C-alpha cells in the first residue's frame, strides 16, 4: 500500500473486479460466460451478487434535489455582486500600481537629472570657472599693470614679505 493510499483504495481481488464489472455491465463476453457458470453453481455467490445489485438499485429511491428559480436568481445576484467587487478591487489595484509607477518614474527622472547635471559639471569645462579663480587678479589689474613686471611680482610673492596676501595670490 502506498503511503498516501487509504485502505479502501487498495486493489481488490480479480474476483471482486469481475463482480464490479459484471454489476456495471462492463464484463467482456468470455469473462461474463465464466462468471455466469460460477453463479449457476454457487448459491452464496449468486446471493451476494443479487444483494449487491439490489443495494445499488435501492439508491435510485433517493430523491434528487429540486431547486426553484429563486436559487438561480440569488446565486446570480451573489455572483454579480462578487464580480463587481472583484472589478473594483482590480481597478483600485491598477490605480495603485499606476500611482506607484508614476511616483517611481518621477523619482527616477529627478535622480537621472541630478546625476546628469553632476556628470556634465565634472566632464565639460566651465568657461566661467577660470574667470572666478582669476577674479582677485582682475580686481587688482590696474595696480599690477603699474608695476609692469610679472617676474618682480612672483619674486615678491616668493619672498614672503607679505605672507597674509601670499595665500591669496594666484
Amino acid at each position, binding site marked *: 500500500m502506498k503511503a498516501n*493510499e*487509504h485502505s*479502501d*483504495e*487498495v*486493489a*481488490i481481488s480479480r474476483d*471482486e*473486479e469481475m*463482480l*464490479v464489472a459484471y*454489476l456495471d455491465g462492463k464484463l467482456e463476453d468470455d469473462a461474463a460466460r465464466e462468471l455466469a457458470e460460477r453463479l449457476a453453481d454457487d448459491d452464496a455467490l449468486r446471493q*451476494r451478487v443479487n*444483494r*449487491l445489485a*439490489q*443495494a*445499488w438499485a*435501492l*439508491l*435510485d*429511491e*433517493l*430523491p*434528487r*434535489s*429540486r*431547486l426553484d428559480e429563486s*436559487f*438561480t436568481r*440569488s*446565486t*446570480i445576484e*451573489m*455572483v454579480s455582486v*462578487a*464580480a463587481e467587487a*472583484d472589478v473594483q478591487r482590480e481597478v483600485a489595484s491598477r490605480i495603485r500600481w499606476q500611482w506607484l509607477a508614476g511616483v517611481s518614474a518621477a523619482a527616477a527622472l529627478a535622480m537621472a537629472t541630478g546625476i546628469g547635471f553632476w556628470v556634465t559639471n565634472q566632464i565639460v569645462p566651465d568657461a566661467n570657472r577660470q574667470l572666478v579663480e582669476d577674479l582677485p587678479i582682475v580686481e587688482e589689474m590696474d595696480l599690477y599693470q603699474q608695476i609692469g613686471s610679472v617676474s618682480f611680482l612672483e619674486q615678491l610673492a616668493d619672498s614672503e614679505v607679505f605672507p597674509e596676501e601670499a595665500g591669496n595670490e594666484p
Partner: protein
Amino acid sequence: MELYRLHDPDVQLMLQVREDDAEAFEELMLRYQSRVVTVLEHLVGQRDQAEDLAQDVFLRIYRARKTYVPGAKFSTWLFTITNNVASNARRNRARRKEVRWEGSSGDSTALPAMEQLAVAASGQMPARRLDKKEVQDIVRAAISGLNERQRLAVLLSKFEDMSYEDIATTMELSPQAVKSLLFRARENLRQILEPYLADGTPPGDESNANGSAASDVSAEAE
C-alpha cells in the same frame, strides 16, 4: 483538449462564460444546480448548507472563468470544485467541533454516522412493507454510513453516471483506486441494507438483534 471543446456542449458554454457571457453562465447553472446540490446534500448532510456550498461552487466557477482551459469534461471539472468545496466545509466543521468539544465534555447531538443510521431506520418499527419515505430514509442513512470518499464515489457513479476515469480525475485518484473504492462502497451498502433486502426489516432492528453488522461496516469503512 480540442476533444472536449468539440464534443462537450457544456465546455462550449463555459468558454462563452470565459468571454463574460452572462446568459451562458445562467444556462450552466440551470443545467447543474440541482445536481450539485444533490451531491452536496449527501456529502454534508444538510440541505441549507448544501445550497450555500453550491452557491460557493458557482461563484468559484465564475471567478475561475478567465483561466478556464477545457482539460476534461465540464462536469468533471465542476464536481472536482464541488468536492474541494465540500472537503473545505467538512474540515471547517471538524475544526469547529474540535473547539466545541474542548469547551464541553459531551455533545449529545453529534451522533456517529452508524448511530444515525439506527435512529433513521428506527429500531422500533415492526417488520413490514415500508413506505417510500421510510425507504428513502433507510437508503439515505445507509449512504451516510459510508466514509466520505466512498460516498462521493457512489454519488458520482450513481447520480452523475460518471466513468471510473472521470471519478478518478474528480477525486484525484487512479481509476484502479476508484474501482476498489466503489466495490467496497457497494459491499458496505449491501451489508447495511441486508436486513431490509432480506425481509424488509429496517437495518436498525437487525443491529439491535445480533450485535450489528452496521458497526462492522462502520469500522471497515474507516
